[in-house]
């Protein structure tokens, strides 16, 4: 199979790779980039474990071909903490016990991160609706919702993290 060249900025760092055009962004991140924090939990774009933020918008990376990510900017769970310091949404998930097995967590974090970017103070219903594309089998969601609320409070109190810009290679 012929290959295509893609240039993608991942967590602030630009890279280019030659890949099969059929490759999914999720597999590209995991198998080519080695960013295994992005998980795959289904093959029908229902579970949201693979959620990443592409050009500022949450997408399910199992439904994006890597070619569609060409020239775009991707943020994955590995890009949430900065200089070794957990971001507020990560801290909130830990403090509120918003995870158990951890498998859905990357996708939940990225979907929540995106929600808080567009809505700084979501109410309970907005949080639940915005996370409806991310399935969790462990927590019963209650603590995840609490975590998003708490992160929203932290952001209100302390402000958002500065996005660290990493220069291109």
């Amino acid at each position, binding site marked *: 199979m012929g290959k295509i060249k893609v240039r993608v900025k991942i967590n602030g760092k630009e890279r280019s790779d030659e890949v099969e055009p059929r490759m999914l962004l999720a597999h590209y991140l995991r198998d080519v980039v080695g960013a295994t*924090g992005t998980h795959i939990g289904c093959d*029908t774009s229902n579970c949201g474990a693979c959620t990443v933020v592409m050009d500022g918008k949450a997408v399910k990376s199992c439904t994006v071909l890597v070619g569609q990510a060409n020239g775009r900017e991707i943020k994955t769970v590995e890009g949430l903490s900065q200089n070794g310091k957990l971001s507020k949404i990560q801290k909130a998930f830990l403090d509120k016990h918003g*995870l*158990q097995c951890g498998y859905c967590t990357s996708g939940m974090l990225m979907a929540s991160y995106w929600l808080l970017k567009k809505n700084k103070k979501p109410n309970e219903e907005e949080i639940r609706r915005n996370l409806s594309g991310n399935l969790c089998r462990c927590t019963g969601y209650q603590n995840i919702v609490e975590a998003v609320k708490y992160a929203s409070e932290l952001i209100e109190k302390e402000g958002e993290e500065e996005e660290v810009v990493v220069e291109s290679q």
Partner: protein
Amino acid sequence: MITGQKFVEGKGTYVDDINLPGMLYMAIVRSPYSRAKIASLKGGLNSSDYEGRMASVGEGGSGEINIYSEPVFAQGYTSYLGQPVAAVFGEDRYKAEDLLNSVDVEYEPLKPVMEIDAALKADPIHPGTKNNILIDKWVGKEFKDTSSPIVLEDSFYNRRVATNPMEPRGVVATYDGNRLTMWASSQSSQSIKEGLVEAMNLSPDSVRVIQADTGGGFGLKGGLHPEYVIAAHAAMKYKRPVKWIETRSEHLSSSNPGRGARADIKIFAGKNGIINGVTGEVYVDAGAYGGFGEFAPGFIAYQLTGPYAIPNGYVRAIATLTNKVPQGPYRGAGRPEASYFIERMVDLLADELKMDPADVRIANMSSEPFKSPLGLEIGAAKPFFQDALKEFEYGKRFTSDTAGLGFFVLVPGIGPGEGARIKIEKGRVKVWLGGDTAGQGHQEFVRTLIREELGIASDLVELQLGDTDAVKRGVGAWGSRSAITAGAAVIAASGKIKDMVIKDFGDYSPENALSGSYDIDHFEEMKGTLNSFGANIAVADVSPLGAIRVKDCWSYYDVGRVLSKESVWGQIMGGIVQGIGQVVSEEIAYSDEGELLTGSIADSGVLSADQVPNFVVKVAENRSDLPHGVKGLGEAPTIGVPSALVRSIEKVTGKRIRDTPVRPEDIAEDL
């Protein structure tokens, strides 16, 4: 490191994150038919290369290989949709998928046997066997009741549901010429090893199973699966590491689902609501092969009197073979089924006598410990239940007009105990358990117990992932048993370390312990029962078209002493959503012709955040007699919630509910 920190950073190491040099990816050619003759088969690794059968290990496993054991590859015919027929191996996951087309299979489809009743009448699905009955036994003692004025009969069905951990199954196998090493997403590395040893006829010393971070299990990941044997065999044959990662589609067709149990029940009662006896038949749809299905019907029958002091009981327990993927344990694993069956009958009796369901329940409770005619030992149910009604503000906040009650006894899997190893070295403590945590938070109770027993601060204590080379003997994390059994093993091992420190230093102090090197691997033998009570109350809202929403769901469980509040509450809230799911949406469904109708995780009914409310969780901390005071917990919500919710749906719609999931057509208003 705080538990969970690596996961919020995306730094977990799940099995699909493990990559070894030269690794092959495995993909499986699966039967597209529920039942077919394999007329011809060319290509891939298949039964002509490997003829072995599966060993029944893990929860409810007999440890044996018998005539009903599943062949690792289908041999001459297929018996369920999704059954492994051949395996192919590629340099990456895409190439492995491509290679599926290189296998040429010619099937001659046969009429499948899809349901329990059909299985009882049909010719055997396996040539050389007499019928489709896997198990048929009686539990309890025959009795005659000609005096009870009320005799009620009904039938109930808990249809099959997928276990659906968010991380599907997966393994990486490698062989160095002497030893097979397998990394697995696991609830029991020990059982997987035992299974590989039995099924592949290997020496125990030549197999090591290591747990990877495990993204949920819920019963599925406690035993051996055909794909594990195939990956192990291929790693040995090709002398290259082999990775197999299940897709969700494969999970829905080929991972052992739970439930799939039906009961025809008769109760004999007085006009005062007192039940004098219970009889009936419990049927388990075991699927195409033995395994957990051999254990399940007897286990359900044994619990059929629930938390009630019913003096007579005689129950037939049957498992039938059908052309479906073999049934397996799913959170509760027989406990929710038994509870559902008896709770439905108790509600029916309440309706018959026009009594409040709480009063009928109380009428059948003992204030003393009770041993049922089916063998189930329970404590005094009445005081606990009366407390539960108070906690629920029953009669005020909730009334029997709309709210449903579920009351149950949780039977944790105690025997034969569990293993634990504690190693102190360079000022830090490493702990291994015989059962593998799959997200329940074992690290938390381990840290609590080490802090209490050895006085060592939690940040110095790290729970390690399961590893059969690290712990000599272990069982597994299922059956609400880990805090009980692994906790007891940690305490016993801590005691031995204390003795050693005293021998070395003259007295014990955490500083002394941390300044030395100690390594204790202990198996704590345990037997008997440690049954505990729990109750739920739920209120449903049902739309005219039959869509169900849960308005309220409260829990009150006797969990014994709480070792970690976060873990206990987390277990309960997560389990509640699974209990609700079983009632409102979760199902693995087939057509009569054997087509799988459940095509996605959404179809299988896993609930999302916008479909459930917040829950109210209350616990009774009645200490057990164990040194750490704990009781079982993990399965409580999947036992208690379905009965409570179904009763509420029944009250709200006025329609008798017998089966789960409740389908919209069962309850929609007649339009």
